[in-house]
């Protein structure tokens, strides 16, 4: 006994003749017994008949078409149509789009101006943030550097002065006396006086006050030496030496030198 065919594909296949002989006979037997499936079959037949009627109507419509002419019409479109994609050339015009296409003109002008702008930009080089070309240093750094230079200049001045004084106050050897006679000592003294003038501005600093006092004393001494001249007697020489010793100038110079050297090391 076959189960009910309603809502089953089998009944549709039966009506469309898609079932084999054995299956179709089984459906026949079921339909004889099942009223519901018979109703369903009638309903489906109405739908398929409607489709059949539509098909017949379509055939009437098809009879109105000239099937002999259609292939030629389509073939003409394929083989005989001009190539519409090929742009027409306007005679006597260099660029026909200019004459009637404002958008094309605008686009072309934009391209030209853009290309020119890019050319000039590239030629002049792309300017990014430039590194500072001049020497730059912070005020604090410059201050420290200046002080350092002042120290070194002062140390140099004191060294040379010490050497000159030492040369002068030591018991006169034949060489040193000869040097003074030839004016070499005088020249050195003059150079030291010039140097003192140069470092005076630097000695004005607060940190260099002590050094300035010693340098001033040394300057006076050297000035005196240049004035007494080359024919200094032993007596005069001894007086100068006594003044150096009495004022402990030697010791003071050494102390100031030591202090300048220490402060230089600390600042490093």
């Amino acid at each position, binding site marked *: 006994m076959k189960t009910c065919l309603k809502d089953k594909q089998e009944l549709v296949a039966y009506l469309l003749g*898609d079932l084999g002989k054995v299956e179709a006979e089984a459906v026949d037997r079921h339909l004889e017994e099942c009223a519901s499936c018979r109703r369903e079959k009638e*309903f489906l037949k109405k*739908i398929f*008949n409607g489709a059949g*009627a*539509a*098909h017949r109507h379509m055939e009437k419509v*098809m009879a109105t078409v000239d099937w002999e002419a259609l292939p030629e019409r389509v073939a003409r479109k394929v*083989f005989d149509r001009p190539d519409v994609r090929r742009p027409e050339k306007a005679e006597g015009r260099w660029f026909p789009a200019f004459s009637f296409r404002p958008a094309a003109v605008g686009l072309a002008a934009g391209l030209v101006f853009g290309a020119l702008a890019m050319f000039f930009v590239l030629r002049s080089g792309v300017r990014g943030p430039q590194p500072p070309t001049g020497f730059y240093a912070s005020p604090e750094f410059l201050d420290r550097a200046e002080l350092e230079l002042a120290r070194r200049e002062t140390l140099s001045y004191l060294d040379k002065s010490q050497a000159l004084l030492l040369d002068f106050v030591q018991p006169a050897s034949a060489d040193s006396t000869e040097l003074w006679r030839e004016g070499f000592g005088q020249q050195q003294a003059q150079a030291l006086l010039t140097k003192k003038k140069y470092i005076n501005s630097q000695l004005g600093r607060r940190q260099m006050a002590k050094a300035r006092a010693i340098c001033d004393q040394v300057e006076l001494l050297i000035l005196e030496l240049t004035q007494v001249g080359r024919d200094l007697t032993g007596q005069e020489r001894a007086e100068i030496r006594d003044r150096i010793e009495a004022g402990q100038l030697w010791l003071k110079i050494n102390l100031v030198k030591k202090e300048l050297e220490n402060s230089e090391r600390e600042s490093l």
Partner: protein
Amino acid sequence: MTETALQGGQQAAGLIDRIRAGDREAFKDLIRSYQQKVFQLAYAFFGNREDAMDIVQETFLRLHQKIDTFRSGYSLQSWVMQIAKNLCIDYFRKNYRRRKELESDRGLDELNLAAPENGAASRAAELKDILARCIHKLADKQRMIFVMRHYNQFQVEEIARILNIAPGTVKSLHFKAVQNLKSQLSPYLGVSK
């Protein structure tokens, strides 16, 4: 009817080769062979002669553009119908969607199918119109399969080849189409669901 569908792969392959070589007559022969099948599909799809004619012409123009993509050994009829089917679906989506929406607002009652004063022929004609409208409401594949089965009278295997799906799927989708049509038509055919 002048249509004689090409039989055999060799004959089809020879025809395609001649068309590729620029043979105008070969191209016209191919059109003669399939133009009515394409028309049937398109007419059933749209219910409109002019749209169907547009689809026929466009199908063969498209076929000529794609002639180099035809694979030898493949059914020429299936290939032609595939192109036609794709064009139908595209055309339907572009031009009939709005119409479909408008029609869904209109009741089928307006067709007055069960009017007693009409004769049997008139009722059959109206059933055809209602059916056409109900077919338009089906999903694309269901509509295509129903049309191919009942208007083109293609067998399940041929439909499966054209749509590139399994025959079982064709049967299943056809059954769904019938069920949907039954559901839409039952109030007008006097049969309970």
